[in-house]
């Protein structure tokens, strides 16, 4: 089944910071050493997308679960919380 996660993220409120709180330490690693690229699948917000020659980081819709930080087989994702007050904002929780 193809599900557009964008439709789900559209329901959420975000206070987006100009600066990303997620960063790939070394973009080369994703292609040279990471065969499975599991971040493309398990991220519940589909933050990581495969582009022609790189993986893009769409931090704006990040749900801040932390999965990519510990699930990246090469610990190649630098992860911090968005600045105080930024990021996702639950209405119900």
């Amino acid at each position, binding site marked *: 089944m193809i*599900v557009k996660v964008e439709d789900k993220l559209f329901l*959420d409120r975000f*206070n987006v910071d100009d600066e990303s709180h997620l960063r790939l330490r070394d973009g080369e690693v994703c292609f040279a050493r990471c065969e499975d690229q599991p971040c493309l699948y398990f991220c519940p917000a*589909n933050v990581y997308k495969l582009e022609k020659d790189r993986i893009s980081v769409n931090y704006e819709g990040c749900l801040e*679960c*932390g*999965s990519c930080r510990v*699930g990246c087989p090469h610990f190649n994702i630098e992860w911090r919380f968005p600045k105080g007050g930024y990021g*996702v904002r639950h209405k119900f929780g």
Partner: protein
Amino acid sequence: MDETFDAAVVGAGPAGISAACVLADGGAKVIVFERGEYPGSKNMFGGVLYGNHLRQIIPDYLERNCPIERNIVESRLSYFSESGGYSLIYRDRAFFDERRNNAFTVGRAKFDRWFADQARAKGAVIVCATVVTDLLRDPAGRVTGVRTDRADGDLRAKVVLLADGVNSPLAAGTGFRPETKPENVALAVKELISLPEEVIDERFGVSPGNGVTNEIMGNITWGMNGVAFVYTNRSSVSIGIGANLADFAREKARPYEMLETLKLHPMIAPLIKDGKPKEYTAHWLPEGGYDTIPRLYGDGFLIAGDSAMMFNALHREGSNLAMTSGRLAAETILEALKNNDFSSRGLHGYARRLHESFVLEDLRKYRRFPSFLETHKELFTTLPRAACDAAREMLTVDRVSKRTKQSLVWKAIRGQVPPLRLLRLVWDAWRSVK
């Protein structure tokens, strides 16, 4: 910030706010840091809180208009294949009246904010939109305060309580807890589906204000070690599904696709029909159990709640462990303030209190449960399918004799789950929960 506090708490969730309430009641000067814009704005869980544990902190929580969604009167445990499923339902009159609010659903954005307001009324200082980025330490390594992402954001405190939840880069970064291993957490996604209150009453067979919890296992987690749930709120239904993060990475499964598939299941679809999705959230559950609990205290600090991996995976209890551990941490801090000893020795009472309480006793009892699930993947693959095939064949009324049906069903089950494996499963299950 020049002021010195008795205690600084990281995180305004159930553990942190429980601690802040008890500390403020005890006359301590306490400050709580919350990274969200308001308490609860970053928090999510399945949805159930427990009256007994809340009452120990706020005895008159009902009079204080605690934002309860529905009082739980019925629990359902379900076992699903892709096309069908079994459900075991238990409902009791006691949960309607004398044990009312034994368990109830809440939305965290409302509840955590209300809970923090209670702490504030008692004198605690709650500072929102502030991330604690590091801990301050003296040359001997004792924790002496917190560093935040505010300008001039260092704050000294006699003791720091880490109650910042299961996803804690702070604990990992400062070495208070080893960085989480994917196999020790479940990743869960949840959708809030809005429905009129009376429609929920009717579909779940409850009177206004009462509700139902439903835990579901089986093929719905696509062979991964996981669980799904449906909880009723006042005018919405929470539907969620989660699985072990290491399994997710291995299977290359997309959590939101798994959620959408669950929503189409014949036992689920009618419950949420015509509902409008209102929110989509994701969170970890600390599923590693007793053996993943870190060192709980040291010189100048303690750890409580999800940060300390306190979660009972079998009974899906977490918020009560968080509230209780937060309260016990606060009692320990009050004792340390009296003795003016914030060293590891001065905070030793925390471990004793936890060991004497149900918190560590329960977690110790089920310490084998996480590995039981991890080593019996047939619970999520062949077994639910075989069990549901059996029921479907037995319930199909045709011209095949019952004896023939029975032998066909047994043959099919044996073909999918060898009898010895089945015995092993029952034996291991019993050992993991005894």
